[in-house]
């Protein structure tokens, strides 16, 4: 049961992220919710890679014959963090331009594209 705790936390983070995106009106808060959702997915990925008693697959100074984990999920998580960084930077720069043009970050006032 306790071994499943990371998965519950990950799901909780994902739910918090989605709820935040649906209920907030401030664009910056929506981006924060998006990053929370992303953290949830990252946590889920990393938790999948956990093996009892495994060590990081690095030979530098490792004990002889130790059990090493497969680093695929760690690589995936890292890639997703990098992608997340790029996305967040892009979205934030969009928001900065929007704020300069409209003077607000509230999506109820920004919405001009309709129909």
């Amino acid at each position, binding site marked *: 049961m306790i071994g499943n705790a990371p998965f519950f936390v990950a799901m909780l983070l994902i739910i918090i992220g989605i709820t935040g995106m649906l209920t907030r009106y401030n664009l910056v808060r929506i981006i924060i919710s998006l990053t929370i959702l992303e953290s949830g997915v990252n946590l889920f990925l990393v938790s999948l890679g956990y093996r009892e008693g495994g060590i*990081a697959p*690095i*030979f*530098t*100074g*490792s*004990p*002889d014959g130790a059990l090493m984990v497969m680093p695929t999920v760690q690589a995936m998580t*890292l890639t997703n*963090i*990098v992608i997340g960084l790029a996305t967040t*930077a*892009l979205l*934030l*720069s969009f928001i*900065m*331009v929007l704020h*300069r043009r409209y003077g607000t970050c509230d999506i109820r006032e920004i919405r001009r594209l309709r129909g």
Partner: protein
Amino acid sequence: MKQSNIVRITADIMFPFIMIFGAYVVLHGHLTPGGGFQGGAVMASGVVLLLIAHCDKDIKTLIPTQILKNVETFGLLLFGLSALAAVILGSGFFTNWLVNTGLLFGTPVEYGPNPGYLNTGGVIPVMNIAVGLEVLAALSVIAVIMFRSTEPDCGGEEQ
């Protein structure tokens, strides 16, 4: 807004150490946890520290954006070309063509635990350095541009 002397002087003292630590993380990416992105992000955090500490000065003279942009392009090209070099040498794209050749980063190493030899890993450290340069430059440019556009009388530059 001018920062206090303590902040500015501490930032100046810390900056080289942050850069060295970032460079260490990049260069040892194939031996220890870390790598190009992590080290680059550490180095970029040093640039951001400078930016915050000296926000009252002219940023253009403090951080040369154009050089950073060129460094970014250089990093990306180094990454792409070191992957492409494998094709030119007659194997598949992204093949580790430097490993075990005795050249740069090419010292052969036995399978199994070892104390960690820097001069190994073939093309992996080269790509780590490329990514590190790219991330350092890209994050710094993003930070500078975002910082500049918070000033009231800035131009409309994006990204």
